[in-house]
C-alpha cells in the first residue's frame, strides 16, 4: 500500500510546492484544505501526464514510465518552488470571529473523527469482500486500467468493448494504471487507495470551505460521513466518488469561506483551481461535462456582474491542460455513447412531451431520493435539501444560491436524461440513480451549510 500511496503523493506534493496559493484558495488559512486540493489536482493532472507518456509509446508497466513520471513531477515541483521563492506569497489569516472550542466543541470534533474512523473501517472491510470493486468498477474502470497497464500497443482495444461504456473518459483508469506502475504490479489496493483519497478530499474540502474554526463545519463533516450510502461507494471503486470530489472542490473554491464569491481580493488562485477541478470532473465521467458547463456559466455570470471578464483567463488556464486531454480523447477514440445511440431531435422531443414518461421518472426519482442514505440515514436528501432550497430562496447569499442552484440543475439534467433515455426507464434509473445521488451528496451538504457558515462569520452569537 505504501507504493500506491507514494504514487498519489508525488504529484500532490509537486503541485503543493508549485502552487502555494492553494493554501489561501479555500478555507482561508486551512492547510487541510490545501492538502485536499493538492490531492485532487495531483490525481487529475497525473492522469493527463500518464496518458501523454502512454501516447508516446512508453509502457506504463515499464521502469521508463516511472522515471519519466518522477522527472515530470520533480520538474513541476522544483520549477514551482524556484519561482515561488522569488515571488512574495502572503498567507493571510482570515479575520472573523470563531466559535469557542470549549468542551462541547471538542466532543463534536472527537465524534466526527470517530465517524471518519468508522467510515474508513467500513470501506476497508467492504474492500476485503469485493477487492475488485462493484460491477461497474471491474467492467468499466479497472478493466480499462488493465488495458492501459498491460500492453502499450493494445490499450486502444479497450474502446472496442462496446458494453464497457467506451465513451467514458480516462481520468480514473489512467490513475489506477499509474498507481499500479508504482506498485510494480496490478493490485486491488491501488484503485481502493485512489477512492479513499478522493473521498477524504471531499470531506476535508467541504469542512474547510465551511471554515474549520466553526462548529457548523464539523457538523457538515458528520452529516457527510453519516450518509453510509456515500461511504459504501468508496470501496465500489467506481468513478462517482472521484467525480464528487472534483465537483465539490470546484464549488468549495468558488463559494466557500474566503473564496471567489465571499472574498473579492485576488481570486486568481481560486479561479485557476476551479477551472482545473471542473475540467477534471468532465475528464472523469460524462456527468462531469454537465457540471463543468454549469460551473463555467456560473463563473462567467459572476465575472460579467463584476466587470472582470479578464479573470476568466485564470479559469481557462487552470482547465486548459485537462481540456486538451479531453479533446484528444474525443478525437482519438472512436467511441460512441450508448445513451445517444439512435437518438434524434424528433425522438427526444417526442419523449419530452410524453406525460407518462415524466410521471414515471418523477415517481422513481422521488422514491430513490427518499430512500438514499443507508440503514440509519433514510430520507437524508429531502431532509437536508428542502430546507436548503427554502433558505436559499428566502435569505441565501449569492454563494449559497449558486451552490444550491448547481445541485438543482444537475438533478434537473439527470431528470431530462432519464425522460429522454432510449433504455427502459425503470432499469436505467434503478441502475444508476443511487450513484448519481452519491455524486450530489457532498455538494448538497456543502450547499446546505453555506448560509450557516456565512451567518456564523458575521454574527457569531447566532452560530451557537
Amino acid at each position, binding site marked *: 500500500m505504501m507504493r500506491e500511496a507514494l504514487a498519489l503523493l508525488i504529484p500532490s506534493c509537486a503541485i503543493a510546492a508549485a502552487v502555494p496559493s492553494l493554501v489561501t484558495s479555500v478555507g482561508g488559512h486551512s492547510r487541510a484544505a490545501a492538502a485536499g486540493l493538492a490531492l485532487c489536482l495531483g490525481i487529475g493532472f497525473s492522469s493527463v501526464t500518464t496518458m501523454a507518456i502512454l501516447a508516446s509509446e512508453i509502457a506504463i508497466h515499464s521502469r521508463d514510465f516511472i522515471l519519466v513520471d518522477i522527472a515530470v513531477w520533480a520538474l513541476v515541483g522544483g520549477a514551482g518552488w524556484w519561482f515561488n521563492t522569488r515571488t512574495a506569497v502572503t498567507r493571510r489569516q482570515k479575520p472573523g470571529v470563531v466559535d469557542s472550542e470549549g468542551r*462541547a466543541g471538542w*466532543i463534536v470534533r472527537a465524534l466526527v473523527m470517530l465517524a471518519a474512523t*468508522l467510515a474508513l473501517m467500513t470501506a476497508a472491510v467492504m474492500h476485503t*469482500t*469485493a477487492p475488485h470493486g462493484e460491477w461497474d468498477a471491474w467492467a468499466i474502470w479497472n*478493466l480499462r486500467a*488493465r488495458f492501459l497497464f498491460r*500492453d502499450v500497443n493494445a490499450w486502444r482495444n479497450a474502446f472496442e468493448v462496446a458494453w464497457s461504456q467506451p465513451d467514458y473518459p480516462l481520468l480514473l483508469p489512467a490513475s489506477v494504471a499509474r498507481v499500479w506502475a508504482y506498485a510494480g504490479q496490478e493490485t486491488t489496493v491501488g484503485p481502493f487507495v485512489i477512492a479513499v483519497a478522493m473521498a477524504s478530499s471531499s470531506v476535508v474540502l467541504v469542512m474547510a470551505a465551511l471554515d474549520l474554526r466553526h462548529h457548523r463545519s464539523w457538523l457538515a463533516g458528520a452529516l457527510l460521513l453519516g450518509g453510509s450510502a456515500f461511504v459504501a461507494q468508496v470501496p465500489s471503486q467506481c468513478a462517482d466518488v472521484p467525480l464528487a470530489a472534483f465537483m465539490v472542490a470546484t464549488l468549495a473554491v468558488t463559494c466557500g469561506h474566503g473564496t471567489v464569491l465571499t472574498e473579492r481580493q485576488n481570486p486568481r488562485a481560486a479561479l485557476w483551481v476551479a477551472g482545473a477541478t471542473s475540467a477534471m470532473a468532465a475528464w472523469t465521467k460524462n456527468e462531469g461535462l454537465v457540471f463543468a458547463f454549469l460551473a463555467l456559466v456560473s463563473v462567467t455570470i459572476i465575472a460579467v456582474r463584476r466587470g472582470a471578464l479578464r479573470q476568466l483567463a485564470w479559469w481557462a488556464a487552470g482547465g486548459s491542460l485537462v481540456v486538451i486531454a479531453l479533446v484528444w480523447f474525443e478525437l482519438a477514440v472512436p467511441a460512441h455513447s450508448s445513451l445517444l445511440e439512435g437518438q434524434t431531435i424528433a425522438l427526444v422531443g417526442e419523449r419530452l412531451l410524453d406525460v407518462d414518461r415524466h410521471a414515471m421518472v418523477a415517481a422513481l426519482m422521488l422514491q430513490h431520493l427518499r430512500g438514499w442514505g443507508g440503514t440509519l440515514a433514510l430520507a437524508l436528501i429531502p431532509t437536508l435539501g428542502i430546507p436548503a432550497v427554502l433558505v436559499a430562496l428566502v435569505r441565501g447569499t449569492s454563494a449559497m444560491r449558486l451552490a444550491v442552484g448547481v445541485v438543482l440543475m444537475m438533478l434537473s439534467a439527470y431528470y431530462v436524461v432519464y425522460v429522454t433515455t432510449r433504455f427502459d426507464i425503470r432499469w436505467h434509473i434503478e441502475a444508476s440513480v443511487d450513484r448519481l445521488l452519491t455524486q450530489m451528496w457532498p455538494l448538497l451538504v456543502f450547499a446546505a451549510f453555506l448560509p450557516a457558515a456565512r451567518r456564523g462569520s458575521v454574527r457569531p452569537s447566532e452560530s451557537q
Partner: protein
Amino acid sequence: MRVSMAAIPLWAVASGMVALALGAERGPDPIIDLEAECATLALVTPGSGPVGFLDHHGSPDALEHVRAYYVVQYAFAPRLVLRQTDLEFIVVLPEALRPGGDDRLDGFERVTGSPDGPRLYRRVE
C-alpha cells in the same frame, strides 16, 4: 443549534457502526474465484488476438451469464473476448455447456482448466 450539535455527530457515529456491521456481514464477491481462474487460463493463450467465448446454451443474456462473460473479458484484457466460437481459442464455463454433450465444441480440444471451473479450448481442425 445545541441539539444538532449533539445529535448529528452521535447519529453519524451510530450510522457508521451500523454500516460497519452490515459491511462485515457481506459474503465474498462471486467474481473473485472466477477472475482468478480465468487469469490462469489467460497465461496459456497468445499475448494478442481475440479469444472466443462459448455462450450459455439456454439463456446467454441472463444476468449471471452476462456477468461471467464480462469477468472473462476482465481477466483476459488486453485481448478482446468475443462471444463467438470461430476463433482458435475459446473460453468455456461448465454451466454454458448443453447437458449430455455440446456440439458447439466439435473440432476443439481442451487445453487446460479445472472440471468445475472455466476451461480453455483450442481448435484442432
